[in-house]
């Protein structure tokens, strides 16, 4: 956003917009140097010039492109601004040829180019090779979120307020007043403080606001503190607990058996046979014979858990070993399991008691 803003200002200068060419590259799209080069050719509109020429190396191709930018009298050439988004992904290309060439040309004053890289990684310099790093001008601009909580609240207010150009003036005024009242309410301040403590990121603030704005409808035109609190709960929902909520009773029993195995053997990986034995110990107590399912049925429940990625094999499947004896790990925490059980609908009481009992063979 900053770059675009700066570019726009720059383009307003007459001379600049006539002369300067821009090339925008993105690390996500151009995943190797060949594609990047094609993209540069395309953006500089030099496709017809390049035609079907075959170039020996990247450098030759690139310098050809830049020469072609020189104006008629061959004394000067157009300056080009290269903007590389997701810069760290470019550093993962083979030999970093694109970066090397770009920096090389920018240092050796053949053609006036400027290279601007945008990245989230602070250790970007470590990713660059020695020869690339040496050609880099080492000018870095850090954009950090350095605001405190009061400013965070102000940003919250600003984001929510409607701008002056909004067509319905009366509604806009009422809305902005509502926002002002909200930002002073205690419960709202608590919600914002919680979010601020977790992440100063403005995107997470946007998500929270988005969730609460969803509840604004024609019949409920103004946002209330309750909306914000519910949105905050949705943001911090444990998604794995939600998945556990939808499992069948047999699958819950298997998870409890795995939990007991983890407690006894201290997180060593288990296989289906061990879980089945543990489950049988539970079933064989007199009152619980209603859960006496046959082995293939239990196996199917086990596989469903694997498909939902709640359990994962410790190593990649080998064709030789049988599926029952493959070692697995459970990807749920004890507290997660207990919390999920609290909310589980129609949970039979004996299953619940088995879960909370610490000695499974009693």
């Amino acid at each position, binding site marked *: 956003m900053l770059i675009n803003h700066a570019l726009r200002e720059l383009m307003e200068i007459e001379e600049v917009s006539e002369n300067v060419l821009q090339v925008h590259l993105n690390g996500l799209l151009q995943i190797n140097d060949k594609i990047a080069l094609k993209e540069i050719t395309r953006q500089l509109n030099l496709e017809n010039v390049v035609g079907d020429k075959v170039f020996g190396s990247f450098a030759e191709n690139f310098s050809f492109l830049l020469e072609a930018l020189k104006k008629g009298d061959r004394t000067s050439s157009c300056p080009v601004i290269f903007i590389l988004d997701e810069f760290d992904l470019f550093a993962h290309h083979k030999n970093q040829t694109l970066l090397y060439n770009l920096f090389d040309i920018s240092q050796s004053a053949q053609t006036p180019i400027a290279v601007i890289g945008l990245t989230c990684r602070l250790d970007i310099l470590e990713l660059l090779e020695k020869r690339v790093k040496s050609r880099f001008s080492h000018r870095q601009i850090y954009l950090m979120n350095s605001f405190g909580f009061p400013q965070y609240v102000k940003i919250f207010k600003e984001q929510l307020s409607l701008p002056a150009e909004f067509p319905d003036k009366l509604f806009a005024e009422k809305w902005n007043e509502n926002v002002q009242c909200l930002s002073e309410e205690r419960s709202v301040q608590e919600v914002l403080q919680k979010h601020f403590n977790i992440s100063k990121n403005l995107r997470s603030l946007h998500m929270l606001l988005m969730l609460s704005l*969803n509840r604004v409808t024609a019949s409920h035109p103004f946002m209330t503190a309750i909306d914000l609190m519910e949105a905050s709960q949705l943001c911090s929902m444990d*998604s794995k607990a*939600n998945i556990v909520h939808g499992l069948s009773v047999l699958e819950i029993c298997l998870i409890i058996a795995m939990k007991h195995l983890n407690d006894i053997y201290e997180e060593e990986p288990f296989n289906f046979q061990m879980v089945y034995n543990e489950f049988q110990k539970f079933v064989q107590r007199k009152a619980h014979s209603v859960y006496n399912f046959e082995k*293939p049925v239990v196996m199917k429940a086990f596989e469903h858990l694997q498909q939902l990625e709640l359990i994962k094999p410790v190593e990649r499947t080998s064709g030789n070993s049988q599926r029952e004896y493959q070692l697995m790990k459970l990807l749920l925490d004890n507290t997660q399991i207990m919390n999920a059980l609290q909310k589980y609908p*129609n949970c039979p009481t004996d299953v619940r008691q088995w879960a909370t009992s610490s000695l499974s063979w009693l």
Partner: protein
Amino acid sequence: MTHLENVVLCRESQVSTLQSLFGERHHFSFPSIFIYGHTASGKTYVTQTLLKTLELPHVFVNCVECFTLRLLLEQILNKLNNLSSSEDGCSSEITCETFNDFVRLFKQVTKAENLKDQTVYIVLDKAEYLRDMEANLLPGFLRLQELADRNVTVIFLSEIVWEKFRPNTGCFEPFVLYFPDYSIGNLQKILSHDHPPEYSADFYAAYINILLGVFYTVCRDLKELRHLAVLNFPKYCEPVVRGEASERDTRKLWRNIEPHLKKAMQTILKTQWYPNKYFIKVFCYIGLSAHTHVELPYYSKFILIAAYLASYNPARTDRRFFLKHHGKIKKTNFLKKHEKTSNHLLGPKPFPLDRLLAILYSIVDSRVAPTANIFSQITSLVTLQLLTLVGHDDQLDGPKYKCTVSLDFIRAISR
């Protein structure tokens, strides 16, 4: 809206959330939405119905079909092309190999008249397969609105939670929406919705009630319950058809259906052991497992039993079990340490061929000659995958085998 409510049951809050996210046609919506929930919780159905009813331009792609990048990207572009050029019958097929080309072609295709001002929706079903494709695909799709600079929203549908999708170096976080599983009341409502026209709604509702009572503990999956309902309904109606009971005679109907349902529970949930990942479910109505249908010749059964014993008993105990005159057994501490992890839990151990033959000779009453017949039977057991060969084929000091069947199977064939 009421039409929507009639078609999509029990999902009002999710539908209203999605509608408020979509907004008006020309509004820019949130760049990416991630919907997760159990299988058969209606994610695909609700999304498709909503987009079709509201007549929003959308492309629906199932990622299971697209095992290469090219298939996925070309499908999206071609479907979009079909949407936009509905006047001329034939439009050329677009080829696209990389994500870069995709973004460029996408920009071109969405310049078409009827797509220009509206939000285009791309729905990717079974999105968990995207994680296994190229690394830039998932972050790219999450940011497609920004990269292509167009009004587009990508919707991901998956069973797996978002935390497992997130790439290591971070990405644009989508709007995460959870489709909760249906409660028992909801299931009742949905299942009673498709009652056959010959019988009254109450009759069917009573049947569904009984069905849920029996099957709800084991299975909460709507698709399976629906299948079960259709399957068992004729049996339920039998007394009425035969004239023995009227529709309201619930006790008689219950007594008729109850044993049948209990039996169905044991057998109907017994699928073959295919990996569930690919949703191949084969319902096996026969009570026995398929393995016991294999008829083995006389010696093969003994070989298999010998192999099982060899796999699961440690070699030191052979002497004790199989020789007529065994020496004194020294009780060592060695035995006690290993009691915890019983061999039955850890799986079969490999054993050399000589040991198998030795055990075979001792368990078969009559004299067994080591003819080629015996060896060929061993090889055919390997082909049947009842034994597996461990190690290289060309090992010179005897091949090693492992037994791959369970105790129940051994018991079944030894009768």
